[in-house]
Structures are given as C-alpha cells and as structure tokens.
C-alpha cells in the first residue's frame, strides 16, 4: 500500500513541475469555455430549459466540462502515452519484473496526475467561468463533497478505459488509431460538447448508459444537485459498476498480454 501511495505522490509532484504546460492548459480551457458558453447561451435563449437545465445550469455545465477535461483525460493526454511507449519499446518487460502490480501501479500514478490536474487545470477555469457568467453553484455545502466522490469514480472509469486502450498496443503495435477512436468517443459520449440529456431518442438513451457518461454527465448532475439522496447512490452505483467491470476487463487483458511479452536478450 505504501508503495502505491509513493507512486501517487510522486506522480502528483512530477506533474506539478510542468508549470508552463499547466498554465497553457488553463488558458486553452478558459478560451474554449468562453466559446462554448456563448454557443450554449444562444441555444438556451432559443429553447429555455433545454435538456432539463436552465441557463445558469447549462453554463455551469460548460465550465465543469472544461474543469474535468484534463482530470478524466477525455481527450487523452493522461498516463496512456507513456504506457503505450513502454509497450512499443519493450520497456514494459522491466515493469513486469518489478514486485508491484502493473495495473495498480499505473492506477496510482494516474490518480496522482488527476489530483494535480483537478487543482491545476480545474479550479482556475471554473473560477473564470463563475466570474464572467452567471453560473449555477451548489446550494448545499455537502454537494461539493458528493461531487468530489463522483469525480473520483469518474477518474477510475477513465483510467480503466485508457488502460484497455493502452494494452491493445500489445497486439496492434501502433496506438495512434485506437487512441484517436478513444478520445473521439470520450469527447462525444461524455457530454463534453453537448449535455447527454439533450441527445435525442435512442442515441440519448445509449449515450447515457455508456461508461463515458460517468466521466462528465454524472459528476455534473451531482454538482447541479439533480442527483441527491437515493438518486445520488444510483449515480455512484452506475459509475462504480462501470469502473469495476472495466478494471476487471483490464486485468484479464493484462494477463493475456503479459504472456505475449518476449524479452530479447542483448
């Protein structure tokens, strides 16, 4: 346990050293937040209460998306780059010799990264959004805690998905294609571009049931206090269910993949 805690803390510190990159990310999230917020305002002016949100809630949703984008690596850029590189170059063999569980190791590292991103790239754009627009904020202080739990579960689901993506490189040898498909699905099905409650008919139902929904739509609904009491437990259950299922799949795939590793002597 101490080992994984050290990995987590180390990863947090490591990402904290990328100061210029963080500042650049904050700038980009803020710019996109403004662009999206204006399009949402045009949309919600035409159709007030679209998707069950009023204008202030829709605007909060925009900024939550920008705040969580890096945390749940909706567009990638999390740990997967490094893991894919290690699989491609064969460095993964060294990792497998370590007296540590591969999945748990990367999970801890990703958690450290996500924790830093939440502080580094989450707080500032959210504050900028709250200052520039009239956005809905939680009425009960306890909602903030409930939201953080949901974000934690979102990180777990995101990790599990990207871990599967990275492991696929054992077979495909080049990750570019799968990575792109993964971030594409992440952006669209998480509700990053438009809340999933606005998606029509069957597309909406499918999108709301997919794992990506736990990465933005569900935490946002917790934040906006649309999931309280029993519904909150339902939200957690949905996220935890996907996390467990996908982590288990990752574990199974890892077992098959590591049997394929051939260590070349030099």
């Amino acid at each position, binding site marked *: 346990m101490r080992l994984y805690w050290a990995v987590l803390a180390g990863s947090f510190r490591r990402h904290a050293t990328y100061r210029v990159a963080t500042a650049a990310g904050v700038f980009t999230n803020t*710019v996109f937040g403004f662009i999206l917020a204006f399009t949402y305002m045009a949309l919600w002016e035409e159709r007030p209460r679209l998707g069950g949100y009023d204008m202030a809630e829709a605007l909060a949703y925009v900024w939550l998306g920008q705040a969580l984008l890096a945390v749940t690596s909706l567009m990638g850029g999390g740990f997967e780059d490094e893991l894919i590189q290690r699989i491609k170059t064969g460095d993964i063999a060294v990792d497998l010799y370590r007296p540590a569980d591969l999945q748990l190791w990367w999970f801890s590292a990703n958690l450290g990264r996500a924790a830093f991103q939440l502080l580094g790239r989450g707080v500032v754009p959210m504050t900028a959004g709250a200052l520039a627009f009239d956005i809905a904020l939680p009425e009960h202080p306890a909602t903030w805690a409930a939201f953080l739990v949901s974000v934690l579960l979102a990180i777990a689901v995101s990790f599990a998905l990207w871990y599967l993506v990275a492991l696929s490189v054992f077979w495909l040898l080049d*990750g*570019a294609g799968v990575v*792109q*498909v993964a971030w594409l699905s992440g952006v669209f099905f998480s509700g990053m*571009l438009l809340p999933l409650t606005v998606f029509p008919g069957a597309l909406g139902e499918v999108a709301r049931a997919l794992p990506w929904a736990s990465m933005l739509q569900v935490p946002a609904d917790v934040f906006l206090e649309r999931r309280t009491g029993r519904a909150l437990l339902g939200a957690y259950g949905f996220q935890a269910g996907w996390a467990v299922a996908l982590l288990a799949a990752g574990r199974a795939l890892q077992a098959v993949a590591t049997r394929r590793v051939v260590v070349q002597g030099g």
Partner: protein
Amino acid sequence: MALAAEGLRAYGLIAVMWIRSTMTYRFSFAMTLLSNLTVNFFDFVVIMIMFGHVRGLGGFAFGEVAFLYGTTSTAFGLADLAMGQTARVGRRVRDGTLDTFLVRPAPVLAQVAADRFALRRLGRVAQGLLVLVWSLVVLEGVDWTPVKVLLVPLMVVTGALIFGSLMTFGAAFQFWAQDGAEVANSFTYGGNTLLQYPPSVFGAELVRGVVYVVPLAFVNWVPALYVLGREAPAGLPPWAAFASPLVAAVCVALAGLAWRVGIRSYRSTGS
C-alpha cells in the same frame, strides 16, 4: 524564391518518407483515417442535435451554419495536414533533438512541418468538404453571382493560409515557452470551433478581437457573410469580404518573421 523551392522539395521528400512508414501499420492507418473522418462528423452531429431543438442559432438557419462549418473545417483541415506537426517543436526544443534538423542542409521549418507527416489528416479535409458541399445543396435564398462562387474556394485556401500562419506562430512561440503547445491550440482549434458558429452568437468584444487582433474572422466569417448576403461583422465595410488574400499574405509574412526570430534565439539544451 530559391529557399521556398528548396523548402517545398525537402517537405515533399520527408512527407513521402513518413507516408511510407505509416503504411507499415496498415490496419492502424485505416483506423486513424476512418476516425479522422468521424472527428468532424461527430462535432457536426452536435450541431445537428442543436438544430433538432431550435430553428435558428443567433438568427442563422441550419444551412448557413453548415456553410460556416464546412468552410472553416476544410481550411483548418488543410492547414493541419500541411503544418499541424509544427506543434511538436516544443518537445524537440525540450529534449534537444531539434539540433539534428539544424545541421541538415534543408530549411528547418520545412523539416519541422513535414516531421511525422500524417496523411490520416486528409480525413478531416474530406469531412469538411463533405459538409461544405452539402451546405451548398441545402442553403436557401443565396443570390449566387460569379464573384460569390469564386469566393468559396478562395476562402478555403486563404483560410488555410491564415490557420497555417497561426500554427507557425505557435511553433515559434515554443522556442520561449517550451511546454506551452496548448496556447497555440486555443487559437487554432479554438478558432476553428468559434468560426463554425455565426458571429451573432458571440460577445461583441470577442468578435472584434478576431477581426482586428487575431484576424481569424477572415478565414471564413467575413467572406462567408458576404456570400450569405449578411452584414459584415464588427462594423467592417462590405469590400472587406475580398480582403482575405491580403490578410493571409500579411499573416504568412509575419509568421515567417516570427519563426526566424524564434530559431535565432534557439539555444540547445546543452545537457
């Protein structure tokens, strides 16, 4: 002129080399090309979903928004195909591998732009063109004149030049902020997203900013609004619709200058 020709030749050679290398992983290439086609499709689906709920956005009908979308996406796709790889310059500055480019007898910008040339980005161009052609079919009430017909391909080309200049600016900026590639993204990707919607959606300051400060509006807004028979944004005169080539030329010149200044200030990592 000789330098430009030499640059183009180097660019072509490097690009062909990377295309060959990509073709080694055929399955992965097919998947990236396909998903690249879908990239634009997915965010266009978002606009279609929006119009499933409303009749107009900022006073613009679906066909008009599709026209804006198609013109900016095609321009952006072309720029991204040709110059998108310059975003990697920061990484090369950080790890010192830019040095390899400096000792080769070919213009550095050409080498940097063609580095890991990604043919899959054609997917974005194809998708943008598809939406553009479709928008021309569904557009209603446009009074087509020969000038307006000519303006459509012209704005795609000049738009690509403006986006390409911004990417070069971003690359030059990396010589100072070695880790700040994302700042450039907010102007290129962000600009592309912005230009997909009519200017009436955005705040007046934001619109003035992309007309007079970072001239993104000349990628498509200014000429496209003329084609659609609407008023020019931010109080521009109607003839501004034809100023895009001039704006693009100025952007290209300034970007070239910025790149030159950037590379002169480059000091290797020396570790």
